[in-house]
């Protein structure tokens, strides 16, 4: 934990109406590595992830208290532009959700609304680069005008990753990105995550402890809305400090 962290959360509570879903979570997330959130269903890991780019705003009675900072800037401050924030903190969802438009349009949409490309040539370049980085270019370069929804599930998810990185984010949040995919597609996405981590801070929520162990350098274990333990992945998995973490990892519950 040498440099200053990319994202810092301090004493974060998340409420859904009267129900407290996240209780007093503090965490630092660093650049250039993958941070995994693990824990049993309903433990709040996805909720906490969605509070990092304010996607919880779309839920009517969700409320976040505490402090979350991106590069030292409070993302819940009145001066924070949520549109710019979500471009800087991209997100990939559990179920691949490409737009029902062409493959090209799926990737070009973000750069277009943010005005990142001057002219057609530059847009083509952005789209190509994003698709190359997402490891999808060779499979789709001859059919960019085909519908994004016609791709296979794994390709759709990589298209969604390309769409997210096309707007040059600094952080990428992934909410169980492989849970709807078969093992081969999962392996491809994991490989991709590993390649992407040098340029972004990546946070991944996963149900699979093997996946967390494979792709992440840091792991946070959530249980019943609290963060029980956070540390180097190797330490959390081989030598957990907390009894509850140990029970979960050894399959005692969850």
């Amino acid at each position, binding site marked *: 934990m040498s440099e200053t962290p990319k994202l810092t959360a301090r004493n974060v509570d998340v409420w859904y109406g009267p129900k407290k879903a996240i209780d007093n979570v503090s965490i630092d997330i660093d650049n250039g590595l993958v941070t995994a959130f693990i824990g049993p269903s309903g433990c709040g890991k996805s909720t906490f992830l969605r509070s990092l*780019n304010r*996607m919880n705003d*779309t839920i*009517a009675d969700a409320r976040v208290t505490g402090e979350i900072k991106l590069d030292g800037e409070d993302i819940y401050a009145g001066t924070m532009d949520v*549109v*710019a*924030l*979500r*471009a800087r903190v*991209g*997100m990939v*969802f559990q*179920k691949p*959700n*490409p*737009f*029902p438009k062409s493959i090209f349009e799926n990737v070009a*949409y*973000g750069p277009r*609304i*943010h005005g990142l490309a001057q002219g057609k040539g530059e847009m083509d370049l952005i789209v190509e680069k994003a698709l190359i980085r997402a490891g999808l270019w060779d499979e789709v370069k001859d059919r960019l005008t085909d*519908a994004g*929804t016609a791709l296979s599930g794994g390709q759709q998810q990589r298209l*969604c990753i390309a*769409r*997210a990185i*096309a*707007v040059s984010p600094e952080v990428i949040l992934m909410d169980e990105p492989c849970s709807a995919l078969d093992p081969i597609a999962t392996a491809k996405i994991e490989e991709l995550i590993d390649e992407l981590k040098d340029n972004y801070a990546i946070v991944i929520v996963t149900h699979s402890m093997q996946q967390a162990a494979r792709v992440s350098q840091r792991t946070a274990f959530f249980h019943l809305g609290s963060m029980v333990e956070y540390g180097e992945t190797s330490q959390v998995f081989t030598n957990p400090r907390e009894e509850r973490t140990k029970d979960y990892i050894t399959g005692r519950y969850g």
Partner: protein
Amino acid sequence: MTRGSNPGPWQSPEMTRRLARRHAAEKRFRLFGMGAIGLSLAFLALLLVIMLKNGLGGLDWSFLSGSDSTDPSLAGVWGATKGSFLTMVVTLALSFPMGVLAAIYLEEFAPRNRWVDWIEVSINNLAAVPSIIFGLLGLAVFINTFHLPRSSPVVGGLTLALMTMPVIVISGRNAIKAVPPSIRDAALAIGASRVQTVFHHVLPLALPGILTGTIIGMARALGETAPLLMIGMRAFVASPPQGFTDPSSVLPMQIFLWSDEIDRAFVVNTSAAIIVLLVFLLAMNGLAIYLRNKFEVRW
């Protein structure tokens, strides 16, 4: 116990009877379903046959190009058709954008509170209000308060727009609600604003559904007579309207007026006018269905 010594439930005579009963129920349902469709089609065919038999003889160029007259052989439907067309233009131009914007606001932007609940209930009630009440409203507001010209397509269109709008709002909201939330998440998560999310992604996907509701609303407005009675569109108009503010009639009103005439020759005119109204309606629906299929997005 040896294998196969127990026959299980599948060979018993009772099971055979039960299966037979289920198959019979299946057959019965198909029969009833086909009967229901057949009956409604039969009535439609009967109506068409009667109309064509009575009216086809009256359908000639002078009937299609003429306007109302006291002489049945000179009377035509052009004036009423043009009146219907102008009225529909006003209705569509007002109710479609207003209805769609209201639906978008209520579904995507409005906060969930008691006021919005009230508005929702009011719109649902509005869709169920008898049409003649809208006529009274049109008379009181557009003619008596704003002094717009009586019997004109603009007043008719405004009145029918009030009636059509709630239908479009309700169907529009349902269509917007049916767009999967994952699409909104996708757009918001790459930094689209809420307005961009709605207009770039949600609305295009909801449009086919909205158009379906609009067809239903417009078809109802086209056939409406009662509210137009109240705003004076039953006047005898012997020349086709030249604009939105000219006195005019509409097709259903013309049919109603002719059906009231004593002269037997008007029976032919009435049936012929019904044929014209049905063709108008079919053309309108056909156009809407074409547009809907054009905008339909396949997944």
